[in-house]
Every structure is written in structure tokens, then in C-alpha cells.
């Protein structure tokens, strides 16, 4: 199959969860378990209701457009996409209709792979629209929940610039992280906030990829709800198309729409492109065109927070983190926020990063919670780390306190007391060490004769005597000093 080039284009739909109300209605934009609780008359298409554009949704969508290096329109307007479906009570969707003006046109995104190499994906457009209601199908009945109807939705369409399933997923992951960092959306696929359509085609590797005439037949796979699904669907489709092409049956690959069937791990034909619906787009007369002032765009541009790749560079350069730690921390906005809060309250960058990437992430992954719900906030973690720093506790004790505090949901400080305090008093340790050396003359002699590893034996003796509370650094200093004198 190496003699084929795969061309992949993505359509990524992301619900914007960070606006207070829906995109054209005043109903709350909030994920809610109780069906039909966040609705206003417009969301159910009652006669005489009118759309009112949510300015915050426009602002956030323009921010996404700027991040993707797109061209923004001079005037913003919306179009109606007309078709009948039970999840859409008006029976038209208010959306934008590229290549007509939309939120963002002709941009790109540089994406970084796991190994640090980069690739560029061209963005055809990004546009703002309203989501439909959600349908639940049962044996002989279907239920409609209008909570989702009218939730602002960003649809991003890439050029067919991606060449592998892995790159497609890497792109999607980076976009998700951008949405999270820019506070546009939680981008949580568990809540159905991200849905993807994928276009896959293959072409002969020896032909010029720049010439669209050489491109193969494009197959669209609709409504994939997870990134894992995207990867599997693409790989399945590459295999299917390549096999047919290798067998000389490429004419069986039709320009069509298929769906991803998770259970069977296959794509299934829905309809041919020939049967494509005519959506009868036209400009929605209820929403007057409005000018996008360049001063507003400037303002939006300035308000874009540091995005993951920039943030990673900053962590490495300014805070001296390892590339690995930096990568792990920027992966989720919430991790980065935790880390930056640690810095804000005066904790050491490397120490915080170390605790975050090991103990904390280990723990939240183990019990499968969000770091936001993690009991040991940066403020509480600081109690532990400060105690290590002043030598009140050892790092071994610190870990014990960490887990104990989590277990009992009590402030770490309540476990840190003078009893646990390390013995850092030099005179006390000197006396103890002198005594230990006197009691072990044979080992001292052996050490003097060059048996270096006995040094740890003496440290162990000190710890045994102090029940582990001796300050290891000071202990080692004194031991080294005294033993060297004897050499």
C-alpha cells in the first residue's frame, strides 16, 4: 500500500460551551441532564420568534478565526440552511455558507507531532452556526431534547492536507487544546461537544499531489464522536480504498457519504453524493448584516491567552522545565492552570512540575477525576512542599502525608507537626554519630581500608536510631567529615 498517498480533510464541529446563552436565543447555554430545561420559544420554533445574535459567541468565533490565521469578514451575516428534520424545529439551521463570507476564511495551523516534528494544515474556513436538538431513539419511539438546540457551534473545515490517521488525530487534539486554552469550549467529547466528519481519498504516489486532477475519489464519513473513532475510521477507509485500487476495482470507490459503525469497526454507505440535498441557502433577513470593526478584532487578538505550544516553550525557557514535563503539563489547560497557580503562590517551578506530573496526575488518572476536583489544591500542596523545604519533613514523609491527606480529605498541615520534624540539630547528630562509630569499630576499620559502600551502612544506623527523622543531608555531611578524618 506504500504506493498510494492518502489525502484527508476534516470537518470538526465544536460546541462553544463558554457563552452564557445560546447563539440566537436567550436560553442558558449549559449542559443539563434534565431534558428540555434550557429552552426558550425560539428553540422550539414557535411562530413569531426571532433570532438575536449572541455577541460573545461572535467574539469567541472570531478569536478562533484569528488563532487559525484566517481572514475575517468585513461584515458578518448568517444564512438559512433549509431542510426538514425532527431535531430542528424551525426546519432551517441558521449558519454561514462558505465560500460566502463567514467567521474565518483561508487560514492554517501548524501542528506538532509527538516526536516534535511539525506539519501545516490549511484551513478552508471556520464558521458559526446553531446546534440541533438531540434525539434519543427507542424501540418504537424517539425523544427530542431541545437543550442542545441553538447551542453555538463552530465548524472548522480543513483542506485535504493530512496524510495519515495519526496526523489527523494530532491535529484534532491540538485544536481541542486550543479551544480549551482560548476559553472557547470545554471541548469535551464525552459531553458530545466535539463531532467530526472525515474526507478520505487515495492517489498514486508517483503523481503530482499539487494537481487536484490527480486526486482520487473523495469519500465522506459522517458523525464520528471520538478521536479514536476518527483514527479507526480513517485507517479502515484507507485499507478499503487501497485494496479496491490494488485489485483494479477502484471504480467501486464512489463519491459518497458513509458512516462509522463503532461496533463492527467498519464504514457503512449512507448515500451517494449524487443524492446530495439542496439546502436552498439564503441570507437570513432577521439578522441585519453588521460590520466587524478592526478595532474590535485588535481587542480580541490582544485577549487571546498563551496557546499550548507557546506555553510549552515558555515553561522550558523561562522555568527550566524538561521538554517532557512541559509537554505533559500543557496537554490540558487545567493542568497548566494548576501549575501556574503553584508558581503564583510562590512555589518552585521544577518542584511543582515534578509533583504535578508524577503524584498528582498519577492519582487523578487512577481515580478518573478532573484536576479541578482534586482535593489537594496548589495551596494545600504548598503546605507539604514548604515543610520539605524547611526540613520539617523528609520527602518520604511528604509522600505519606500526600496520600494520607487525600485519603482523609484533611489539610496536609494537620499531619505536619514537631514530632515529625527532622533532626537537623548538628550537635545532636554529631553526638549520636560519634557514639555509633564507637559502637562499630570493625566497620569503621573496613571503611578505612577502602570499603566505600559501608558509608550507607552508617547512614542507615543513624536513621534507625532516629526513626528516620535525621536530616539526611546533614547526617551525610557529618559522617563524611568524621570518617574521612579517620582515614
Amino acid at each position, binding site marked *: 500500500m506504500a504506493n498510494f498517498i492518502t489525502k484527508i480533510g476534516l470537518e470538526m464541529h465544536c460546541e462553544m460551551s463558554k457563552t452564557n446563552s445560546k447563539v440566537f436565543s436567550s436560553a442558558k447555554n449549559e449542559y443539563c441532564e434534565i431534558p428540555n430545561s434550557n429552552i426558550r420559544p425560539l428553540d*422550539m420554533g414557535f*411562530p*413569531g*420568534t426571532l433570532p438575536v445574535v449572541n455577541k460573545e459567541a461572535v467574539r469567541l468565533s472570531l478569536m478562533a478565526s484569528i488563532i487559525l490565521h484566517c481572514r475575517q469578514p468585513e461584515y458578518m451575516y448568517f444564512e*438559512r440552511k433549509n431542510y*426538514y428534520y425532527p431535531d430542528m*424545529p424551525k426546519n432551517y439551521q441558521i449558519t454561514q455558507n462558505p465560500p460566502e463570507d463567514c467567521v474565518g476564511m483561508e487560514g492554517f495551523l501548524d501542528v506538532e507531532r509527538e516526536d516534535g516534528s511539525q506539519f501545516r494544515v490549511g484551513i478552508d474556513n471556520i464558521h458559526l452556526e446553531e446546534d440541533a436538538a438531540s434525539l434519543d431513539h427507542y424501540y418504537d419511539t424517539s425523544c427530542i431534547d431541545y437543550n442542545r438546540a441553538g447551542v453555538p457551534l463552530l465548524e472548522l473545515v480543513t483542506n485535504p492536507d493530512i496524510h495519515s490517521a495519526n496526523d489527523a488525530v494530532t491535529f484534532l487534539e491540538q485544536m481541542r487544546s486550543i479551544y480549551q486554552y482560548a476559553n472557547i469550549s470545554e471541548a469535551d467529547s464525552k459531553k458530545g461537544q466535539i463531532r467530526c466528519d472525515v474526507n478520505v481519498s487515495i492517489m498514486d504516489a508517483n503523481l503530482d499531489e499539487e494537481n487536484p486532477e490527480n486526486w482520487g475519489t473523495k469519500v465522506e464519513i459522517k458523525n464520528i464522536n471520538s478521536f479514536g473513532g476518527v483514527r479507526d475510521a480513517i485507517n479502515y477507509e484507507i485499507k478499503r480504498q487501497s485494496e479496491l485500487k490494488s485489485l483494479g476495482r477502484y471504480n467501486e470507490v464512489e463519491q459518497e457519504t458513509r458512516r462509522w459503525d463503532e461496533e463492527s469497526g467498519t464504514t457503512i454507505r449512507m448515500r451517494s453524493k449524487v443524492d446530495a440535498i439542496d439546502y436552498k441557502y439564503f441570507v437570513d433577513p432577521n439578522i441585519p448584516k453588521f460590520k466587524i470593526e478592526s478595532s474590535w478584532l485588535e481587542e480580541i487578538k490582544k485577549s487571546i491567552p498563551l496557546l499550548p505550544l507557546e506555553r510549552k516553550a515558555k515553561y522550558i525557557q523561562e522555568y527550566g522545565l524538561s521538554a517532557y514535563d512541559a509537554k505533559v503539563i500543557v496537554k490540558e489547560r487545567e493542568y497548566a492552570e494548576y501549575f501556574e497557580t503553584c508558581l503564583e503562590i510562590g512555589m518552585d517551578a521544577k518542584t511543582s512540575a515534578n509533583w504535578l506530573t508524577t503524584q498528582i496526575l498519577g492519582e487523578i488518572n487512577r481515580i478518573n477525576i478532573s484536576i479541578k476536583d482534586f482535593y489537594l489544591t496548589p495551596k494545600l500542596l504548598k503546605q507539604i512542599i514548604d515543610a520539605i523545604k524547611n526540613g520539617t519533613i523528609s520527602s518520604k514523609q511528604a509522600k505519606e502525608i500526600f496520600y494520607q491527606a487525600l485519603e482523609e480529605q484533611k489539610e496536609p498541615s494537620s499531619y505536619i507537626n514537631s514530632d515529625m520534624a527532622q533532626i537537623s540539630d548538628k550537635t545532636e547528630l554529631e553526638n549520636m554519630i560519634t557514639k555509633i562509630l564507637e559502637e562499630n569499630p570493625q566497620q569503621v576499620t573496613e571503611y578505612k581500608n577502602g570499603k566505600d559502600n559501608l558509608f550507607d551502612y552508617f547512614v542507615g544506623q543513624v536513621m534507625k536510631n532516629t526513626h528516620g527523622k535525621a536530616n539526611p543531608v546533614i547526617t551525610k555531611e557529618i559522617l563524611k567529615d568524621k570518617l574521612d578524618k579517620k582515614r
Partner: protein
Amino acid sequence: MDKTIEELHELLKTKQITSKELIVESLKKSHEVQEAYNAFVTILEEAEETTITDNLLSGIPFGIKDNYSTKDILSTGSSNTLKDYVPFFNATAVQKLIDAGAVPVNKTVLDEFGMGGTGTTGHTGIVKNPWDPTRMTAGSSAGSACAVAAGVYPYALGSDTGDSIRKPAAYCGIVGYKPTYGMISRYGLFPFASSLDHCGVLTRSVTDAAIVVDTMKGIDEHDMTSWDSSHIHLYENRNKEVKNMKLCYIKELCDIEFYENPTEELKMHLENFKEKLELCKNLGMEVEEVSVNQKLLDTLPSVYVAISCAEATSNMSNLTGIIFGPRGEGKNVTEMMMDHRTKGFSPLIKRRFIIGSYILQKENQERYFKNAGRVRRLLVDTWKKLYESYDAVILPVGSGPAKHLDGSKDILTKDTAALEEHLQIGNFGGFPSITIPDGFINGLPVALNITGNCYEDEKILSIAHALEQAMPYKNQIAKEVR
């Protein structure tokens, strides 16, 4: 109930009558008018009196066209698709009147969803003209025009997408006023063609129209096309000096020479109009004849059909009988929707949906929909150009008095099409436009129309007011002439 709003307010204020008495009288009259002319979908027997305040509208009954959403009151749009629909919210314009203490006493019949100009296509049957029940009221605000003319109350709400307030007002001998697009919120008005739809009012005097629209208007957070008109005071400024105002009329529409076989009625109508132009001059206004390309005028009907049908097709796709309206029958949702729409809509509406759908098809959009939009722009620009030199355009409404319900009696000629439909330019441009009665032909009222530039509502109202004062048709109540 044959009095003006000011007169009624004075009587209420001085306690010579009560709100209750007015309501009782208005309801009694409603039943008589319903019996004779079939003007109402619903008569609100339970209407309750309100406190009399300094607001001129407090305590006074009025009518609402049945395409306004009224809370807890049946609102059908005169369509079987909504024959059982009781909304849970008031249209903004209705709410503003209720807040002012006005009392709705009935919901009036319209051509189904406003998509007609005859008053004959409502689901409750045809509305007859109170001057002559063998004739049309015109539409679509048929019931409102009929009831106001018959003296049920001083005013009723209308809506106007092509001429739906101004044409029936003409046929019924009353005043019909639609202000600048967006001055009154459309929230709660069942849409026909959103870019052309206007709320407005039918009254028996310009002053009453000014009072009512002063209350209905205002920016509304529910309607993005509404705008702040708090600086506009129609009632206060209706008496503004009109001396030296400049009016123009269009030669191609008003000159009898342009009609091949003019009917007697058309001749009389145009002559009467010319007399009224002299009256304008007597009032100190300048009146000039202007010429507009006949070809451009001839495009009016098709431009209107293209735009209105296209928007209507989309606007009314929410009518499926699933969430509201009678549920259709069928094995699945699609069948249920099809059954509801097949049974619910009249043939006229279906025809318009098919035209609209055809025009919006990808392969036809450029030729029909987009071109209609371009010609609309040409027409509007032509009128805007006129407004650079003139304060308003004054024209006769229609080609004569009300047409017969039995259409065979009317001689329809193609060359009067532009004359019949020029009011649509007011909708294309969102211009403020008012129709007032200007005479009688064979005992039946005829009218003229004054249309001005956007936001110049005060100006066109003061012109209409001055002209009305100079003519004997103010506050006339329909008397059956045969």
C-alpha cells in the same frame, strides 16, 4: 365606538362613559359585524375593563389581526395549520398596547398567514366589505379593515408585507399606516416574508394612527431589526407645518394616457387624485410630476412574488403539526408532517411554497432570487433618489374602489398591474407609508397613499394629517351603499 381615540379618552376621563361600557358596546358591535361580514376568528367575550390613566389608549377596545401571537388567546394566522394554537407569549406590539391599558376585544381574519390580497382565503371564510358586501375588503388585514370601518372600535392592528394594511384601508375608506421597517418590533408576528413584513395599524384618522403607533413602536431586544425611535413623536408632531413641502407623483402611474382601455372607474379615480394634488398645492405644498422607467415599474409584481415566496417557504417550514398545531397522521414523522401540511394549507399557499422553493433551488437562485434582490435594490434606489428632491411620493391606491367578490364583474387589464402593486415599494425599501381616503366612486371609497423616506414618519404623517383636515373623509363609518 364611532369616536376618535381623543374623544373616547375625554369621555372616559370625565367619567361620562366607562371602559366597561365601551367593551360591551364593542363586543355587541363585533357580533353584528361578524354576522354581516365575517371579520373575526375570535371574539373575546371575557375582555375586562382597565383603569383609566393619562394614557390615551387606556380603557379603549381594539382589535388584533390573528397573525399576532396573543398569550392564552387562540392565534391562528387564519390557517388550519394553527387552528388550535394558543400561544404562551404576547407579541411585543400587543404587549405594549396592553401595558398602556388598551383592551383587545377580538382577533381579526386575514388572508391565510397574510399571503393574499383579497380577504377571501382565511380558514374561517371570506370577509365582506362593509360598504358593499358583494365586494372585497382586500387583504390581508381584511377583518381589521372591515371592523374599523364598521365602527367596532377606533383601531385594529394589521401587518403589511406588500400592501396588506394600506390596500384594505383604501377599500374600506379608512386610514392604514405602516411605519418605517423596524420601528415596531416584529417579535410575535407570524412571519410571511421577514424582509418585507411590517407591523402597523388601521384607524379612521391620521391622529389615531399616530397615537397607536407611538405606543406600539420602540427598540426590542427580541428583534434585531428594530431600532430606537424614542426621538420620534408622531402624535405630538402631526400638526407640523407642511407649507413648502415638496411632493411628487409618477407620470407612468397617474396619467390616463398610459392605459390602453381605461375603465370609467380608473378615469374617475385618477381624476379625483389629480384634484387632490390641487388641494395639496392649496395647502402650500409643491407638487411635481416625475417619470420612472416603465420597464422598472413593470417588474414590481414578479420581484415581489420571488422575494416573498422564497422567504415564506423557509419561514413557514416550522409549521409541521409536531410541536404545535393539529398533529397529522402517518407512520413516521415525515408522513405526519406531510399530512399536516397537505391538509392545513390552502391551495394558494401551496402554490406560493412551490414557487418559493423553485426560486431558491441552487440552479435557479441566481436567475430568480438574486436577480429579484437586484431589481429590488434598483427600485429602492430610484425612490431614494426621489427623496433627495422630494419630501414624499404621493400616488393613488389601486385602480379604483373595492373589487367584486365575484371576480367576473371586474375588468382586469395587465396595464394596471403596477398601479395595483406600487405600494410594495414601501416594503422593498422599508419606507413609512400611509393610505388615507380621498373620495368616493359610485358611493365606494377610494384612497391615496403618501410614502416617504426611512425614518421620516413624522413628515409623512403631518402631510397626511394636513390633507385629511382639508377633506371630508376623516372618521367616516361604513354605510352599506347597496
